[in-house]
């Protein structure tokens, strides 16, 4: 391999700028940590932590950075297509950007943001002191981080994947995509995917086995239910991705014939395997969002959730259907009328349980005492905007009609109308909603609402025109178009919307800064007079979560305890067993990152050495004897008194 194929950033001034900014950013962090003498703090408090709250915060932090990265990609794409015959990006760069935009936003922004919220909230919502396997949880995070790092360096070293986030064969084969870009694809996703699978197992066990006494399955908060179902989907969908990516790697780097056009391979096999994972993946990012909305709507409507049982049943139905609709992503790729009809019907069937949920939220709002806080505004905006996404989804789901819409901007508009009001609004709403639980103060409401209006309005300005462009015949993934097509003005409007969205996210980030400095501290632990158990403990949450594990007699038990002025926590303090921190997961992540990098370039000797590094961390783990530690009763008393503000 030649050096200029390796350091691809030397080709293009924009990539060079990206490289410089990465180096400067890294340098700034390095100097900052050294100057403020924070290396030890970083290591002992964060890099080695097994505390679910801190792991959750790290997930969300990485997700926000990836949101920035994916957002810059989006801005560049919209800028490129804002005017006809634009030369801002060349075709190759455009291909790389729409590919990484999709990958980053779905796998390294939406999923980790949701997994982050899951990590912070689930143990608190079920009255547990941590997840079932705290150490494995840290491994999950560091594998995810390793995958994210690998995908991000691809831009400047070796070249990014450029065959779309779906990476269809034969386009993604070595013959048609000769750069290492798609090697990054297979390895970065593989590493972070293993982490996600571990998360899935961890949370299923946590939710099934570690609930507070009395909390039966049908007394779990709705977010917990949604996360349980999501993790079941993860456990059965991610192995398919594991196989698909392994086969991709074998085809590209070891000359196998899985997806080739000759020698008995089958290119459509990739499309099927990919979507058997990727369609459930859509529900992995949307079901927890439904859970978040359920919590927020019920809290700020001051009513219990309408139709709790039907909510659960419809989520289970959605999770089953999610595995039966994958072929609707490629109706036009020649699978025959019968298959298309079956997948068409299954696809439209999903609208039924989703509709049930919609009506449940509306009935929860009905006659509620609604307070219009920032998270509530996002939840309220979600209902109509997501419905547009859902209705256009049914349009796309009809196989015969889909021949008109397939791979046009109409499709692009549709899935942004589902994913942004569905998942992105939900994670932002959840972020605002649970922020005081983690940091002990609320985000500023004025800035929050300003951000909400900017994001919601700009979102519609950015994506509504794409519906019309698609119906007018503009296909997706076109790096430019001629003036005669008449696509120019609507694309320009969409670019304006994209700028507005960027502004909205800047306000959001500024809000974090402003609130950290000026926001009043919340000492109650329950700033919204909310319903579920996470609000019963202090904010910020002590390391052991609950000094006494509560007994849950009903859904919304905390709410009823408050209304009836009954004590929620009964019993005496007892020593609490906690898991100890460890650097092993972090080192494992580092080893995986190096292994992935060397594998991308087929440098076998370094790859084998890194693989030995991975095994070394595993061997260390199996021979390690770590029984954790106990927090004494005196220490619990001291912490509790301090958090309550007692002066003793």
């Amino acid at each position, binding site marked *: 391999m030649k050096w200029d194929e390796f350091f691809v950033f030397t080709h293009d001034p924009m990539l060079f700028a990206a490289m410089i900014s990465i180096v400067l950013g890294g340098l700034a962090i390095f100097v900052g940590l050294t100057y403020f003498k924070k290396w030890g703090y970083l290591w002992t408090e964060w890099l080695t932590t097994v505390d679910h709250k801190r792991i959750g915060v790290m997930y969300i932090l990485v997700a926000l950075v990836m949101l920035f990265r994916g957002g810059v990609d989006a801005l560049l794409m919209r800028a490129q297509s804002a005017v006809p015959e634009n030369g801002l990006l060349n075709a190759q760069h455009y291909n790389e950007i729409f590919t990484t935009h999709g990958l980053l936003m779905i796998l390294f922004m939406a999923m980790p943001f949701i997994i982050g919220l899951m990590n912070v909230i689930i143990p608190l919502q079920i009255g547990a002191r941590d997840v079932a*396997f705290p150490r494995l949880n840290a491994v999950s995070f560091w594998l995810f981080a390793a995958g994210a790092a690998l995908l991000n360096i691809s831009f400047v070293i070796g070249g990014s994947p450029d065959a779309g986030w779906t990476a269809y064969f034969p386009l993604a084969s070595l013959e048609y995509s000769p750069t290492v870009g798609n090697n990054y694809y297979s390895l970065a996703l593989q590493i972070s995917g293993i982490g996600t699978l571990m998360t899935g197992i961890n949370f299923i066990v946590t939710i099934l086995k570690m609930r507070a006494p009395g909390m039966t399955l049908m007394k779990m908060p709705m977010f917990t239910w949604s996360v349980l179902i999501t993790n079941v989907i993860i*456990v059965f969908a991610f192995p398919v991705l594991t196989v*698909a990516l392994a086969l991709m790697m074998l085809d590209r780097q070891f000359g196998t*014939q*899985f997806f080739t056009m000759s*020698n008995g391979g*089958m290119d459509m*096999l990739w499309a099927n395997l990919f979507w058997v994972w990727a369609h459930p993946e859509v529900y992995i990012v949307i079901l927890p969002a439904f859970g978040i909305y359920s919590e927020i709507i019920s809290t700020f409507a001051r009513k219990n959730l309408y139709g709790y049982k039907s909510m659960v049943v419809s989520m289970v139905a959605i999770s089953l259907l999610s595995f039966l609709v994958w072929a609707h992503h490629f109706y036009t790729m020649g699978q025959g009328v019968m298959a298309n009809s079956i997948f068409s019907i299954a696809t439209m069937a999903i609208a039924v349980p989703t509709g049930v949920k919609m009506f449940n939220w509306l009935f929860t709002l009905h006659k509620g005492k609604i307070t219009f806080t920032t998270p509530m505004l996002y939840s309220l905006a979600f209902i109509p905007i997501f419905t547009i996404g859902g209705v256009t989804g049914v349009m796309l789901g009809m196989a015969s009609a889909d021949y008109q819409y397939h791979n046009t901007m109409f499709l692009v508009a549709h899935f942004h109308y589902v994913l942004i009001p569905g998942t992105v609004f939900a994670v932002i709403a959840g972020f605002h909603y649970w922020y005081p639980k983690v940091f002990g103060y609320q985000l500023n409401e004025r800035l929050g609402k300003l951000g909400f209006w900017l994001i919601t309005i700009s979102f519609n300005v950015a994506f509504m025109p794409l519906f019309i462009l698609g119906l007018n015949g503009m296909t997706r993934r076109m790096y430019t178009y001629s003036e005669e097509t008449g696509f120019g003005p609507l694309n320009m409007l969409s670019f304006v919307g994209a700028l507005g969205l960027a502004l909205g996210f800047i306000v959001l980030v500024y809000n974090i800064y402003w609130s950290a400095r000026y926001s009043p501290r919340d000492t109650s632990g329950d700033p919204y007079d909310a319903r579920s158990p996470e609000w019963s403990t202090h904010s910020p949450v002590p390391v052991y979560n609950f000094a006494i594990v509560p007994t849950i007699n009903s859904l919304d038990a905390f709410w009823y305890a408050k209304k009836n002025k009954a004590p929620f926590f009964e019993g005496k303090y007892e020593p609490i067993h906690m898991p100890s921190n460890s650097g092993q997961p972090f080192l494992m992540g580092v080893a995986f990152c190096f292994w992935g990098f060397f594998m991308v370039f087929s440098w076998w000797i370094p790859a084998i050495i890194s693989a030995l590094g991975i095994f070394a961390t595993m061997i260390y783990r199996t021979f390690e004897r770590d029984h954790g530690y106990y927090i004494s009763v005196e220490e619990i008393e001291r912490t509790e008194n301090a958090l309550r503000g007692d002066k003793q």
Partner: protein
Amino acid sequence: MKIDNSLPLEYSTEENRLKILGFWIFLGAEIALFSTLFTVYFVLVNGVGNGPSPKDIYELKMVLIQTFLLLTSSFTIGLGIHAMRLGLKKAMMTFFIITLVLGLGFLVFEIEEFITYVHEGATIQTSGFLSSLFTLLGTHGLHVTFGLFWGTAILMQVKKQGFTPETTNKSFIFSLYWHFLDVVWIFIFSFVYLKGLM
């Protein structure tokens, strides 16, 4: 750590029970993984291109030896766990060592089989059929290989520490893993080899 003495040692603590359930769910994910590999194999089994077809290369004798070795190892690890429940450290270790030796034997014959195929010009690069065959068998074989190292590490701990809630838990989980590999092999034997030879 509360130890419940009414349960076998590997189930005796809360942490142990969580680990066993977690491992069962992991095996669920493994079923999904192998199901996908089987599906890939069934899709590509007729994609022989210019290479040999299943009938041309499969040899029942080699496969029967492998099957015998692996099935016996599944039986001996069952005896090992039984001995563990009775608190017989030496018997347990003996059965585990037999299990691992049988596993190693299986692996030797599998590698032998691969070498034979390659000598006949049937490599992983030859056709869609052979790519999927080698990947399915190879994934199973890698699991067995990993199991050999894992089992050895557990044996070393049992030897040093005796039966504790941790070591028994690890041994028990390892036995679940080993039985699972056996089940996968039964499917490979039936639906890859026997069906291919029909």
